[in-house]
């Protein structure tokens, strides 16, 4: 197990390094892009551009620029924004993380619990009305763009039915920290959570249904029935445990991507100042150090969660662990 963990850690470092290079190349080496022109503003003279290049170290060779940026990001931790050099990147990211964690956490809780319920119910009523209804909901769920669902949610909860009993409890858009007022924190986030989880509920309930249906054809389920186990026990102890494997392995990827910035649209439309909104602001102003760091942080969570899921996988499915030991 220790060797496996060490191997995964090495792989993590490798992927993070590769990723930082890809991001750096996208922003600094795309043909036609000139960070100096962006900092200096429109119509800057050649002298100004040269001065900017020198001041920001943009005249040095790309590998040196890359290494010095990584050093400032990871070792000195004093990387500053290009547009405002007293604006430090790291504190801004640390301040926005709780918002993104709040959004992602609630979304994940809703998506995992609802899709387990939907997927199991659909698999158990296979071919019947409940199954068809749930799978239709799932199909529509995966077919709606999040920004549109969020717009419609705002239309209904903030305007159209704001006065009715149904949505009068919905507070105006914005964010309240958990430490300040937990009740208000949750109230502000319920609609964003539901909006963000619809797509994933669709994906995961469909996935769980199909893997459950498959598992119920397996021999060990027949054996369990022959042993005289109750249907409930077969479902929870045998079928669901096996059927959850693909569910769990995808969960790591999607949860990581969610924290990394897939909450961007939800944050923008519901006015939540998280990592996604920070990334988007940086992208809009082409603030390269900011973008590099937010994307690096985001992908760190993707890779980290992937590793954790692999470990969990080994725990759920003993065959994986055995295979790795050999």
């Amino acid at each position, binding site marked *: 197990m220790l060797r496996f963990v060490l191997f995964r850690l090495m*792989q993590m470092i*490798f*992927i*993070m390094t*590769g*990723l930082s290079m*890809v*991001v750096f190349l*996208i*922003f600094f080496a*795309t*043909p*036609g*892009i000139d960070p100096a022109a962006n900092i200096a503003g429109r119509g800057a003279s050649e002298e100004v551009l040269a001065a900017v290049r020198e001041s920001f170290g943009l005249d040095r060779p790309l590998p040196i620029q890359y290494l010095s940026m990584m050093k400032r990001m990871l070792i000195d931790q004093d990387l500053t924004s290009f547009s405002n050099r007293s604006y430090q990147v790291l504190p801004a990211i640390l301040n926005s993380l709780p918002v993104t964690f709040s959004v992602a956490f609630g979304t994940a809780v809703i998506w995992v619990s609802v899709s387990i319920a939907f997927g199991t119910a659909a698999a158990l009523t296979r071919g019947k009305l409940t199954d068809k209804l749930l799978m239709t909901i799932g*199909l*529509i769920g*995966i*077919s*709606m*763009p*999040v*920004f*549109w669902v969020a*717009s*419609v949610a*705002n*239309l209904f909860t*903030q*305007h*159209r039915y704001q006065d009715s009993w149904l949505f009068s409890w919905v507070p105006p858009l914005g964010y309240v920290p958990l430490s300040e007022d937990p009740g208000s924190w949750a109230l502000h986030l319920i609609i964003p959570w539901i909006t963000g989880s619809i797509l994933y509920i669709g994906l995961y309930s469909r996935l769980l249904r199909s893997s459950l249906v*498959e598992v119920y054809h397996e021999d060990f389920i027949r054996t369990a029935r022959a042993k005289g186990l109750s249907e409930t026990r077969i479902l929870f102890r045998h079928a669901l445990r096996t059927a959850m494997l693909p569910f769990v392995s995808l969960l790591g990827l999607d949860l*990581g*991507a969610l924290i*990394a*910035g*897939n909450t*961007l*649209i939800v944050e*923008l439309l519901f006015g939540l100042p998280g990592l996604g909104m920070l*990334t*988007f602001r940086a*992208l*809009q102003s*082409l603030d390269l150090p900011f*973008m590099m760091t937010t*994307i690096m942080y*985001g*992908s760190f969570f*993707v*890779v980290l969660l*992937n590793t954790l899921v692999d470990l969990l996988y080994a725990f759920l499915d003993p065959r994986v662990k055995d295979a790795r030991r050999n």
Partner: protein
Amino acid sequence: MTTSSDSAARHPDAASRVTVSRGPWATAVGRILRQPSAIIALVVLALIIAATAAAPIYAEYVSRTNPFATALSAKIWLDGQEVLVIQPVTEGLGLGTIPIGPTWGPQYLVGSDSLGRDVMARILYGGQNSLFIAGIATTISLVFALLVGLCAGFFGGIVDTVLTRLLDVVWAFPVFLLATSLSVVTIGRSFDFGLFEIRADSIIIPVLIIGIVNIPYIARPVRAQTIQVRQSEFVTAARGIGVPSWRILLIDVVPNVLPILIVFAPITVAISMILESSLSFLSIGVQAPESSWGTIIRENQPLLYSRPWTTLAPGLAIVLTVVMLNLLGDVVRDAFDPRMKQED
């Protein structure tokens, strides 16, 4: 996956049990066309494509407006009265103007945008771009995923190591962020490649970006399948009788990998469509003067509360199209799944 006629010849019993012995392709097509949901999806998609193709006819003869020109002082006849398309606000303080709401008639069916343009006509025109971008982007994804997956899986060794590690890195980059980053650095820029030039407002830029970011998700299963075929007995046999590698690749491997691409095709179109609309909504996708369903929703965002149909209608167009694509995708996936044998 050898053809089923071969196995039927070797096992006479099987041949007598199976009434018609067909190849895997004919079997799959037969399975698809037997599903009512596939027929519905194909018909609705054909209707959507036909409707967007008929956009000029709609604009000319039904809505009788130019959906690309601003018409701030236009008037239309409604219930025997001539009304302004952009009306002064009468409620509240009576400040500003508000575009006409849905008439549910031929002109301004779902209302006008803030520039006096017919939103329904714009949806039909925008649909052309949305469908075109999703279709071409998917083609790019499939072709390059096939190339990458085949090279990595068939040649193995250093080629495989480099390509899979590269895919690992891109895999850790959330698709949406990658697409956003690429869009931001390319937006408003024209590219001169000597032989041809891409204009800054060209829809080729979002097409390329969406096409590229989806490659790893298809290349991985292609690689896995290629490895499986390469290690199969019939490939070993082919090598044994001295068939050259390129022939094995073309005759044995490619036909066995193609079903993966076909299974991925409808859902990749669906994913590309959602991605395009999201980028366009963030104003980093399709650029003016071109429009797509995503840009129409963005343009009408200020009218969300006062004229919701200008946002609801283009969104429903996306949802309807993507639902049909996913429905088709489900049927195609099941049709190519060798485990689903019950009806053949």
